């Protein structure tokens, strides 16, 4: 436990100092940390699920507080919580089903049965129960049944299971829950690291011959997406806006050129001038909000506005870990981060202009250097996630698949 605590602290420090950048890297690190938290968490006999949830939440709160702007952390924590809840639920329903079926069987039999149900035969009743407890699309039947006791189900059932089989199977069930959760988390890690390929697979459907594509900033997803189309022998041209003040566009351009794509670097100010000759704008998101709004590298909003003006499709690529279940309020300010002014102005160069003694004493010169930009959903034409393409208006629904409603507020 102290071991975990120290790694958590280390990671928090890294987040706080912005040592980890990019939502994918952050997400990956977060999941791995949470996995170790879960695996080291000692679970009590009763209410193991809630204990796990509490532990993950505690760590998650620290992480989110360390970098509230990096929404991927919160997303991943919520995903893990969701996994725990789901696994707990499926275990519980399986246990209940098993009890119903083989009331008089011995422990071993029940254990086997449990496994069997858990993995293979989810009966209709179980599915309905699961649907009730999560944010799964409510079927008409469940709606009509009424009184879906969403939060109550897992706890009562697990305690019920406890009371039903008080004997020796407790530890095995506990171990099983943890085991399943870790399985689920591993799955999540695979998903996060594999989201590029999933998204890139769809490139061929969206990029045609001789297309002119504009992108902005540097995103690995975009890189893979474009290269996937290139590998399929599509010839197209890419304009890369350099993305001041970090100029990551240059990095992207170099990578694209290294892979043989026809690339032109333009200044950010030329985005409007060039957009009329562009067929599609493709950007990688930093985060996608539940309303379909996008938080992306600074300057994205300008490109989106220009694209709207010229009716150019504005496509956002986002892995599932970037889907955030929150609805933004004033995201330009609240979900933004101001970086060092030295990226824009040389301190030494302007020190002679700044006479703080004169006048009111307040600095006359301010430098604003935001990191992110918010694109309202009305400017986005299409989201491409690892599950396919979606409208901005559909994002809330898609996002609901990944998170459970209890975790939205951490």
């Amino acid at each position, binding site marked *: 436990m102290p071991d975990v605590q120290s790694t958590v602290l280390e990671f928090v420090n890294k987040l706080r100092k912005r040592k980890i950048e990019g939502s994918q890297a952050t997400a990956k690190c977060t999941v791995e940390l949470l996995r170790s938290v879960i695996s080291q968490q000692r679970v009590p006999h009763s209410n193991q699920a809630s204990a796990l949830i509490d532990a993950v939440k505690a760590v998650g709160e620290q992480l989110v507080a360390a970098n509230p702007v990096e929404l991927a952390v919160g997303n991943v924590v919520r995903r893990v919580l969701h996994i725990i809840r789901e696994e707990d639920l499926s275990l519980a329903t399986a246990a209940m089903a098993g009890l119903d079926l083989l009331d008089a069987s011995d422990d071993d039999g029940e254990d086997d049965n449990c496994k069997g149900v858990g993995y293979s035969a989810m009966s209709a009743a179980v599915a309905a129960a699961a649907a009730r407890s999560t944010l799964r699309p409510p079927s008409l039947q469940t709606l009509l049944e009424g009184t879906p006791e969403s939060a109550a189900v897992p706890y009562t059932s697990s305690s019920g299971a406890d009371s039903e089989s008080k004997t020796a199977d407790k530890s095995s069930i506990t171990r099983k829950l943890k085991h399943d959760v870790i399985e689920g988390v591993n799955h999540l890690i695979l998903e996060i690291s594999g989201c590029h390929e999933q998204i890139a697979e769809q490139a061929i459907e969206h990029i045609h011959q001789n297309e002119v594509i504009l992108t902005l900033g540097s995103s690995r997803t975009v890189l893979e997406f474009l290269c996937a189309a290139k590998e399929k022998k599509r010839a197209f*041209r890419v304009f890369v806006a350099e993305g001041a003040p970090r100029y990551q566009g240059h990095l992207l351009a170099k990578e694209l050129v290294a892979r043989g794509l026809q690339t032109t670097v333009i200044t950010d*100010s030329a985005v409007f001038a060039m957009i*009329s000759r562009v067929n599609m704008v493709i950007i990688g998101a930093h985060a996608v909000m539940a309303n379909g709004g996008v938080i992306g590298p*600074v300057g994205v909003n300008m490109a989106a506005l220009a694209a709207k003006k010229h009716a150019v499709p504005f496509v956002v690529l986002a892995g599932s870990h970037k889907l955030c279940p929150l609805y933004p309020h004033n995201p330009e300010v609240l979900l*933004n981060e101001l970086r060092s002014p030295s990226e*824009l102005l040389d301190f030494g160069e302007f020190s002679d202009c*700044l006479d703080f003694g004169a006048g009111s004493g307040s600095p006359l010169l*301010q430098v604003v250097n935001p990191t992110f930009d918010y694109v309202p959903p009305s400017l986005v034409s299409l989201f491409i996630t690892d599950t396919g393409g979606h409208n901005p208006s559909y994002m809330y629904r898609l996002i609901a698949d990944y998170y459970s409603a209890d975790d939205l507020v951490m």
Partner: protein
Amino acid sequence: MDPRRGPLAVPKVRRVGFFTSIEPSPETPRPNRSLSGPAEAITSSSPLSDSPSGQFISPVQIPPSRHHSDNLASRAAPVPVPGPSAFRRQLANDRALHVGSYNPVDSLLGTSPPSSNGEVSEDSGSLFGFQRSDSAKLSASFPNGGFDMTMRVRAPQESEAKVAIASTSDGRKKNVEASERHYQAGEGESVAAKPRKEKETKSLKEKTSKAERRAIQEAQRAAKASAKGEGSKRAGESSRPKPSKPAKQPQPKKEAPQVTSSVSEKRAVSVEKERRMDVPQTQMQYDDKSRVDKAKRRSVVEQTESKNKVELFLHLPQYERGNQLPNLSSNIFSLDTIHHAVYKVGLQHLAGDISGDNARCIAMLHAFQEAINDYTTPPMKDLTMDLTAKINGYVSFLIECRPLSMSMGNAIRFLKNQIRKLPVDLSEPEAKASLCSEIGRFIDEKILLADKVIVQHAVTKIRDGEVLLTYGFSCVVEMILLYAHEIGRKFRVVIVDSRPNLEGQKLLRRLVTRGLDCTYTHINAVSYIMGEVTRVFLGASSIFSNGTLYSKVGTACVAMVANAFSVPVIVCCEAYKFHERVLLDSICSNELGDPDAIANVPLRNNKKHSKTMDNNKNLQFLNLMYDSTPAEYISMIVTDYGMIPPTSIPVIVREYRREDLLL
């Protein structure tokens, strides 16, 4: 919202359009206008008041004194019809009423101490990268004959309008007035009648026979002569001893046609032809191989084409920069065709030492002045023809150095028209002096004075507590901001900048040292900062007659974002930059800068990268210099003719530019 919108210029704008359209006849309002344009500036400021003795009057220190000039407009103009100037005066008064305590008159009249003025004007002198003391020479070169006359007319008004101009600059002021008057009396009328006549001849040409046309012309000429008789009587009374141009200039024009009307006809046709030629020829398309080759053979500057051209911009010259400069500057002593002043300006353009449209244009005009001064007509050649050819050569050299801006193109057209207009019987020194003074007048009136008028107009749009955003560096906008600060407005400035030129830093430095509250950011953050901005002030390189603003790249982005945030966009542009071409996008007509400026990113680890990537065929760097902002993003254009919507650009181009530039 309401108080913000209060003094917007909508009704005024309408009236501007109104008077231009009902302008009863070219003769009546013109003297009024051409007088009042400068007159306003004169009463309110002294354009050439940078006296050589070092006593400076701020260029933006303009006590408006609108009511006085209102009186003046009606007094100085003998015509009862309220000319445009009177309209404008009235507008100004209206505005003064609307604006209430914001009216600069209250805070300004005669209050500015000369000490602070000195500071300002020093800076504004360096605004354009050179000292304006040239204007002293210039005004001195004007014939002094007009002096008495202006004294007579202006004396009462002068004493009445207590303009805060030091007595030392009085003489200079009179000189200016003299020059204005001389301009007006000398050519205003003869010039004025011409386009109309031509238009008519042109339209009549198909239907009428030669005799009929001749009759019509005679009638027109008679009418014109009588009108002029009146005018020149007025002007001539006091200017009789004056031996110089104003009295002289109209004469040959009047006489020549009277001798034989066929000559005049020919002349009219030829002018028509020349004018047709003068319609801005389409820019050279650099993907046209044969023409490019032809141009190359003639060229002085040997530009190496960049290896990695952007395909979309093959029609524009894409050269590598920086390698030919030392070569060229060593050539400066072995020049044969290009005058050294022009050569110098060309190299400065090439090296980017002079940037900014006004500065470039002024530098070019000064170089032309010098070149004309040093010019001697070769034997057996006509001054008009030869000088035009010379100027053409200079211009093509300048184009080789850097494509001309639209404003420079307009200035060159003006100069060529002046050369063409030169009376045949003028001796060479006289012709040269006249040309030089015309150039000087152009600079003073169309650029420097225009800026001051724009400042006057624009500053009424700045109020306490506002947050003004500007993009890049525009000297007019700088003057506006400084002036507004000087008259005590409390506001904040947001300067948006972009690579590769980072001109905003220049502006930032100047504003911060003056004590303005500034926020600096880059263009990507413009939608972050736009939420707190209340007004956007933009400079312009040119405005096309479909209202499209052609300006430094990024302007369109700023205007677009401002539009999205419902922030009014105010464009400040001198009317001489207006252009009758139309433009839809930023691709067809543009200028490409040095691609290396893009490639060299201010990041340590990237530098070597880009070097190794340089010869990769797939990687190009595109350094666009300009972009075009659609008219719909522009709320208002502040120009020397007042504040107008972008839809009025063609009207201004039609009604004013014709007279000022073409004839």
